[in-house]
């Protein structure tokens, strides 16, 4: 039988994969993709909780509203982030995270 725990473990593993990617990868675009993966993993946990917490015999739609907001924010974040990456590429001619060290103390 598939339980809430199964979904939470899949969500956690997806989040961990994204986290490993954010730390280990050096291409800014791929770091961004891994960030998106982490956001989606959080969404999966939310939808899982929503399905297994019934209100009046229906899934808890408050959680799904939060997922709706998260997806909207993620879309806005991707647009702004990719614009920053393009601006960065214009000035550095590179997408390597180690080419941006100006803020390093």
């Amino acid at each position, binding site marked *: *039988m*598939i*339980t*809430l*725990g199964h979904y*939470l*473990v*899949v969500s*956690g*593993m*997806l989040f*961990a994969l*994204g*986290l*490993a990617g*954010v*730390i*280990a*990868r050096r*291409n800014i*675009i*791929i770091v961004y*993709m*891994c960030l998106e*993966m982490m956001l*989606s993993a959080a*969404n*999966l946990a939310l*939808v*899982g909780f*929503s*399905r*297994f917490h*019934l209100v*009046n*015999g*229906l*899934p808890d*739609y*408050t959680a*799904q*509203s939060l997922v*709706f*907001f998260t*997806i*909207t*924010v*993620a*879309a*806005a974040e*991707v*647009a*702004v982030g*990719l*614009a*920053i*990456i*393009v*601006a960065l590429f214009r000035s550095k001619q590179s997408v*390597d995270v180690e080419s941006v060290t100006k803020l390093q103390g």
Partner: protein
Amino acid sequence: MPPLLFYLLALITLGFGFLVVTGRNPVTCALALAASFVGLAALFLSLDAYFIGVIQILVYAGAVMVLFLFIIMLLDIKTEEGKKLNLPAIVSGVLLAVLLTLQIIAVVGSTSLAQKGTQDTPLALADAAGKIGRAALPTITNDLKAGELPDAKLIGFTLFDQYGFHLQVIGLLLLVGTIGVVVLSKRERSAP
């Protein structure tokens, strides 16, 4: 839902996710991410969240991935980072990921709440029609009485009934984001 289907979908989601993290070519990574999102959308559908599943495909697998591929094409990045692997970062990343996964498995295994299956919490559509009664629109109660789950209608009702202000803030955020993107990508005019 049959357990086999769940494991297949989880494998698609996590397998393509792994490909995103390990792939060398950004285009491969982007396509793997799209496939991973499709698997995730199927998982949403299996949780009776049809609206969220469709939105996931439309927004993530559609709009966001096209944006990523477009930027990859625009910047023309073919061979990258091939030179040297950043070993300390890779080791710490893998270590953190493994630790996080183990921790989540331990927490989930020790919580009784996480042992609830779909059979323990069946949707009671006809019951719900009577219970939410006058609080909902007639179109929602009619759907519930007919034995259908009016997923999008219920989310829309929740959004506009309880979170109207938040919805407007999100609209403002999208506007600010649009303006920000235009400002960021405007080429600075060089002095004559």
